[in-house]
Each structure stands twice: as C-alpha cells, then as structure tokens.
C-alpha cells in the first residue's frame, strides 16, 4: 500500500517541481519593466470617457471576452441545474426556516446588501466595482435569504426565474448586435448612448449574475436537510 502510494506521488511531485523550474526560469528572464498594453489602453479609455480603465477594458475594448464570460456563468448555472438529482426535492429542501436570531439578521442585512450591490454597479465606471462584484453581493444576499428559509419552492424551474437568469445575457447580446443596424460592428456602442447602454447591460447583468450565483448554490445544495436545525 505504502509503496503504491509512493509511486503515485513521485510523478506529481516531479511534475510540480518541473513546472516550478520552468516558470521560475521564464520569470527571471523577464526585464523588470514592461508596459504591455497599458499605455494604449489608458489613452483609449481616456478617449472613450470611462474613468476606470479596467471597466473600459472589460466592457469596451475586450467586451467580447466579457460577453463570453457571462455565457460561461450562465452555462455553469445551466450545468449545475442539469446535475441536480431530483427537481421535486427543491421544494422540500429549504424546510424549517430560520430561527429568530438568524431571521432578524437576514431581514436587516438583505436590503443593505441590495443597496451595496447597486452601489458597486454604479461606481464601476469610475472605481472598483461593476456588474460582477455587484452581482456577487446580490447573489450572497440571495443565498443568505435561502439559508434563512425564504426560498420559494422550485426555484429555477419557474419560468420567471429562468428569465431572470437569462435576461442579462439576452440583453447583452441584443445590445451587442444593436450597432449592426447602423453599420457598426458587434459591441460597437453608438457614442451618443454608449453610457446608457452600458449601464443598462450592467444593471441587468447584475441581476442575472446574482440569480446565477443563487442558483449555483441552491441547485447544487443537498436535497436532504442539512445538519442545520434553525
């Protein structure tokens, strides 16, 4: 047994050491300065009027990556939904509800989380934040609600929830395709309503991302009652 163990560990260990050596050599060979695309990106962001370069990169220059990233998230949600064992179990899953203490916390925190999520989306254009961060906070609020017993039965097999999950992506594609009508390319927001469009997309994305994260948790959550009794 131990000999077998030994053999199975030798290969991974060698692989890891090899990787370390290879990466180390590559990194040490680099010069200590290197601008990459920082300079043109900053100039471009300034020109396009989005103060936060990263948001400019994410939604404007490399918006296509972000479109596919949102697709990844929705795909993962669908994937996890497809893996759940028994759709009927969803309705009996979150039974019991929260005790008074947890319930109170949830009631107090959830609205604040909603506000913070909104705030994070709004500040995204000028500082740290954005749809994903906002969506994550929103999703956390949702998960907290679920854990505290506020789950609606059969979440995610309902049509409405499906719409919420998909609306971000659908609207994003719509906005991405919209410039094609006026001779632009995919995702080439028209300058006159670029900000509004981005905000619209971000807002709906936040909603969808939040719903996705809740679904990821909920759909993957065990179908039997956990150890929790409160």
């Amino acid at each position, binding site marked *: 047994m131990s000999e077998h163990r030994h053999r199975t560990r030798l290969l991974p260990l060698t692989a890891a050491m090899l990787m370390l050596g290879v990466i180390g050599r590559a990194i040490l060979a680099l010069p200590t300065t290197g601008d990459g695309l920082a300079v043109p990106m900053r100039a471009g962001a300034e020109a396009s009027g989005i103060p936060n370069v990263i948001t400019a990169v994410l939604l404007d220059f490399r918006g296509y990556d972000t479109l596919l990233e949102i697709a990844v998230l929705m795909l993962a949600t669908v994937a996890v939904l497809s893996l759940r064992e028994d759709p009927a179990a969803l309705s009996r899953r979150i039974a019991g509800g929260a005790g008074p203490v947890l319930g109170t916390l949830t009631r107090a925190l959830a609205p604040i989380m909603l506000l913070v999520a909104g705030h994070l989306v709004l500040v995204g254009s000028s500082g740290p934040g954005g749809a994903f961060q906002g969506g994550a906070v929103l999703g956390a609020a949702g998960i*907290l609600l679920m854990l505290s017993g506020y789950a609606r039965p059969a979440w995610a097999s309902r049509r409405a929830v499906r719409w919420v999950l998909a609306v971000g992506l659908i609207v994003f594609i719509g906005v991405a395709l919209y410039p094609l009508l006026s001779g632009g390319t995919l995702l080439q927001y028209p300058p006159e309503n670029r900000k509004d469009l981005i905000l619209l997309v971000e807002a709906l994305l936040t909603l969808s991302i939040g719903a996705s994260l809740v679904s990821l948790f909920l759909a993957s959550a065990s179908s039997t009652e956990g150890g929790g009794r*409160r």
Partner: protein
Amino acid sequence: MTLALQALAVTILLSVAIGIYRIERGPTGTDRMLSAMLFGTSGVALTLVLAELTRLGGLRDMGLTFALLGALTSVAFVKRAWGADD
C-alpha cells in the same frame, strides 16, 4: 502615520497567522470555523487600513462587502456543514 498603519496591518496579519494555528489544531470543525470567522473581522480591518494606506476610497466598499458577506460563510457552515468534521 503611514508607518503606524503599516505596523497595524502587519499586526493584524500576525494575529490571523496565530489564528491559523487553530485551524491546524482543530480539534472539531467548529473550532476551525472560528478562525474563518476571526478573519472575517480581521479582513475588514485589514482592508480598511490598506484603503487608507493606498488612498483608494473604493476599498472601503470592499470592507463593506467583507462585512456583509462575512456572516454568510458562518451561516452556511451552521446550516449546511455542521458536524462535517466531528
């Protein structure tokens, strides 16, 4: 002032390092979870201190996020994974 803030940051980090010892020791999952909760608080502090140090106001939002989400892990633990390590 920068130095004080830096010292505080290092101190908080050290305190967490001490906390990690509890994760190593256990003995129960609950004890390990306590360290994670500890870091919920320390993380907020560390974030806020670093926000001041780097003069990035946006990081206060991060502190707020930490504060809001810190409870989530504990709740998930109690509701979903209680006793998983006993």
